[in-house]
C-alpha cells in the first residue's frame, strides 16, 4: 500500500458553482470520483453528458481520536482515511469494501456499502453523523454535525448514505469511528449451507464477540474480535479449526477477490434477506455472508425468478455482475412516487446523477 496521501484541497466553491450553473440550464450531471463503485446502482442516464468531478475535493478536515469522529472531504481516498485512523488504533467499523485502489470516502457513503462486519458493527449509514452537501440548486447545506447524538431537524445526513448522489453532492462527511479490536481470530467449521444457517442463528442468540460469519463451499468461517480474553473464551467454547492468515481471508471476501466472485460469465446476484431465511430453491452456486443476511448467488436463473425468491423472505435481489436491467430490485409504485417527490425536494431540476437509483 502506498504511503503518499492525496493533497488536501477545498473545492467547495467550484463544485457548488458548477451545480448552480447546471441547475440554471437544467443540464444533468454525472458525478464522478474514484469510479471504483460505478458498477453499483443503475447507470446514469445518457443525457448526463456533463461530468462533475469531485475527487480533487480532498483531505481530512478534522479528526480527534478522543471524540471518535473523523470529518473528511468526499474525494479523500478511502485508504488515506483508513491509514490516518490506523495510526491511532481506530477504524471504520463498517469495514467498507474499496473495490479498487481509487475508492473515495464520498463514493463509499454515496453507495452505502459495508463489509463482513455489517451485521455486528452496523452499516455505513449507522456511522454517518453529519455532512455538507450541495443540493440540486447549487446550495451548500450542512446537516447533522460532529456530535454523537443529534435530533435537530430531519436526519438528512444519514439519508445521503446509499442515495448515490441523487439527492445531493457529498462535500464533507463526519463519521463515527471506533477503536480497533485488541484481538481477532477466525475459526473454520465444516457445514452444509442449512447447517451453516442454523449455526449462524444459534451463535447470534448468545453474546459472543462475533464480527464475521461466512459460508462457502462446505466451510463456515467465523471471525471473533474484541478483548483478548473474550475472543479466547469464545474460541474455546465454540470450537472449529483455527485459520491462519485470517486478515487476508476477510479482506479478500470484502473486496470480492475470492474465486467465488470472479468465476465465469454467469450473473452474480446479491440477495439481502432476513438472516434466518431458508435457502431459496434456485439453481446456481451460493455463498452466505453477514450471518445469512447477505447471500451471493452465481446463477443463470431468470431475473424474475431470483427476485421473486428473494422477496418471499422479505428480501431483495441486486444484480452485481451481468447484463440484465434494472440491477436494483424494483420499487413498489407507492415507493416510486415517494422517491420521486423526495428527489424533487432535494434536486428540483433532476440534474444530479439522473437514473442512478432507477426512478
Amino acid at each position, binding site marked *: 500500500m502506498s504511503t503518499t496521501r492525496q493533497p488536501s484541497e477545498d473545492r467547495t466553491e467550484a463544485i457548488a458553482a458548477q451545480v448552480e450553473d447546471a441547475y440554471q440550464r437544467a443540464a444533468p450531471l454525472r458525478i464522478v470520483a474514484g469510479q471504483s463503485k460505478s458498477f453499483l446502482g443503475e447507470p446514469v442516464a445518457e443525457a448526463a453528458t456533463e461530468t462533475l468531478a469531485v475527487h480533487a475535493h480532498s483531505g481530512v478536515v478534522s479528526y480527534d481520536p478522543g471524540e471518535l469522529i473523523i470529518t473528511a472531504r468526499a474525494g479523500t481516498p478511502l485508504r488515506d482515511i483508513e491509514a490516518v485512523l490506523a495510526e491511532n488504533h481506530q477504524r471504520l467499523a463498517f469495514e467498507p469494501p474499496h473495490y479498487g485502489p481509487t475508492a473515495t470516502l464520498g463514493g463509499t457513503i454515496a453507495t452505502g456499502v459495508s463489509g463482513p462486519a455489517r451485521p455486528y458493527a452496523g452499516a455505513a449509514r449507522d456511522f454517518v453523523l453529519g455532512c455538507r452537501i450541495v443540493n440540486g440548486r447549487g446550495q451548500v447545506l450542512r446537516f447533522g454535525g460532529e*456530535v454523537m447524538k443529534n*435530533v435537530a*431537524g*430531519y436526519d438528512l445526513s444519514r439519508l445521503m448514505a*446509499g442515495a448515490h448522489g441523487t439527492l445531493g453532492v457529498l462535500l464533507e462527511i463526519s463519521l463515527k469511528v*471506533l*477503536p480497533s479490536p485488541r484481538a481477532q481470530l477466525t475459526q473454520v467449521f465444516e457445514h452444509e449451507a442449512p447447517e451453516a444457517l442454523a449455526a449462524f442463528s444459534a451463535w447470534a442468540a448468545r453474546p459472543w464477540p462475533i464480527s464475521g460469519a461466512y459460508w462457502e463451499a462446505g466451510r463456515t468461517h467465523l471471525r471473533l474480535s474484541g478483548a483478548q480474553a473474550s475472543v479466547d473464551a469464545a474460541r474455546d467454547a465454540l470450537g472449529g479449526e483455527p485459520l491462519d492468515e485470517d486478515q487476508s481471508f476477510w479482506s479478500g471476501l470484502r473486496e470480492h477477490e475470492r474465486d467465488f466472485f470472479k468465476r465465469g460469465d454467469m450473473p452474480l446476484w446479491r440477495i439481502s*434477506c432476513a438472516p434466518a431465511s431458508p435457502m431459496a430453491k434456485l439453481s446456481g452456486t451460493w455463498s452466505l455472508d453477514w450471518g445469512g443476511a447477505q447471500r451471493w448467488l452465481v446463477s443463470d436463473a431468470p431475473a424474475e425468478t431470483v427476485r421473486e425468491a428473494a422477496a418471499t423472505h*422479505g*428480501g431483495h435481489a441486486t444484480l452485481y455482475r451481468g447484463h440484465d436491467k434494472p440491477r436494483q430490485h424494483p420499487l413498489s409504485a407507492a415507493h416510486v412516487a415517494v422517491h420521486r417527490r423526495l428527489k424533487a425536494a432535494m434536486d428540483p431540476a433532476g440534474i444530479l446523477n439522473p437514473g442512478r437509483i432507477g426512478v
Partner: protein
Amino acid sequence: MSDVISGERAAALDADGAASKATLVAALTAALPHDIVLTDEESLRPFECDGLSAYRALPMIAVLPATVAQVQTVMRICHAHDTPVVARGAGTGLSGGALPLEKGVLLSLAKFNRIVDIDTDNLRATVQPGVRNLAISEAVDHLGLYYAPDPSSQIACSIGGNVAENSGGVHCLKYGLTTHNIVRLEIVTVEGERLTIGSDALDTPGYDLLALMTGSEGLLGVIVEIVVKLLPKPELARVALIAFDDLRAAGNAVADIIKAGIIPAGLEMLDSPAIVATEAFVHAGYPTDATAILLCEVDGTTAEVDEDMARVQAVAEASGATEIRVSRDDAERALFWAGRKAAFPAMGRISPDYYCMDGTIPRAALSDVLIGIAELSEHYGQRVANVFHAGDGNLHPLILYDANQPGELERTEAFGGAICELCLKHGGTITGEHGVGVEKIDQMCVQFPTAELQQFHAVKAAFDEKTLLNPGKAVPTLHRCAEFGAMHVHNGALPFPELERL
C-alpha cells in the same frame, strides 16, 4: 400553569381553514365506533400536554383507534377536511412534540399495545407503536434477549414515540440509538395510505427512508408497526462509581476513558447538586462531598469485563479520581444505578418545578460547557443540576424553578435558551434526544441557516403537501425565525437579513 404562553403558542400553531368541529365529528363518527371519538372537555383533558407541561392546549377532538384501518380512516377524513393531526404515544415527550392543536385532531396510539411477534431465529420483535419500551425487554427476558435503547422513561414511553424522537438511553453509547435498532416500520401516510419503510433484510432498495422517518417527530407519517432488533444479554455487567473533587478532571476523565480504546456500555455524570439531591432521596451511597461522579459500566464476557474494568480504573486514577468503587455483584450494581435513575424525581423533591434541557457537545468541551452553565446559573439566579449521558456528550441540565413565582418560568426559559446557544458555540447541537417539538423551535433558527430550513420544509412537503401532520413543530417557518431574529441579534449580525421584519 402559564396559560399566557401556552395560549399564544397554541394559537400560532393552529392551521387556517380547518373544518369546524361539528363537521369533523360527524364525519368521524359516521366512519368509526363512537366510543373512540372523544369530544367533550373532560375526556380531552388527559391529552392537553406531554412531559413538557408548561405548554398546554386542548385538542378539538381526540381519536383512539385500535386498528390500522381505523388510523387510515382518521387520516383520510382529516386530509379531506384539511384538519391537522397530532400523533401521540405515551405523552412523556419533553419538547412538546405531542402538544395538541386547538383546531386539530389528537390521534392517540395508546390502544396499539400488542407485541405481535417474537422471532428468535432472526432476533427481532414486531410490536405495535403503543407498546412500552420496557415491555419489549420484559417479554424477551426469558429468552436471554433484550431491546437495547433504554430511555430513562422506559417504563412509560412508547416505542412509537421512541422512533418519532430517535430516543436514546444510558446504553446507547455502545449499542446505538433507536435508529440503529429498528429494521422496519409500517406507516400510514397523511392521505391514509399504508407504506412499508425498511424491510426484514439489513438494507432496502432505494433511499434510506427508515433513517428519515426516525426522529421526524410525527411530521412525516403515523407509525403503526415497528420491527425492532433484539440483542443477547451480556454475560456480565459491572459499574464503577468514580468520584472527583474537580469538575474539569471529571470531564477530562470521560474523554480519557474513550481514548483508552474502551467503549463503556454506559458512561454517566452527576454533578454536586444532583449527587446531593439523589443521595437524600435513594441513599445509593454516593459521596456527597464530591464535585462530580461518573458511573462507568462495562459489559461482555466475564474475562472481557475484568480486562476493561482494570483499564477504566487505571485511567480514572490517572485522571485524578478521589475515589473508585466497582460493583461486586448485581445488587450493588443496581444500587449504584438507583441514584442515577431516581435523579429526576429527586429534583422534584427539592424544587417545585424543574426544566430538563438536552444539548449535545463534543466530549472535549464538557468541562468548559459545565462551567459555562454554572456561570449562567448565577447570571439568571436559577439553580441547576446536571445528570447526563457524558460518554455521548449529551447534557441534561435540570433548571430548578417555581412556576408560582412570577417571572421564574420566563427566566428559566431564557436560561434554557442560553444553554442551547452555549452548546452551539462549542460545536454542539440544541437537542441530542428529546427533539425540537415546540420547545426548541426558536433555537432551530440559531442552529440552521435559511437554506437548510427551506430544505427541511421541502422534504416535509414531499410527504405532507398540505402540512397537516403535527404542523408548527420541529422545523420553524422562516417567518417565525425572522420574528425571533428581530428580538435576538447574534454577534451583531441579524439572522435572515433577506426576510422583511414584521
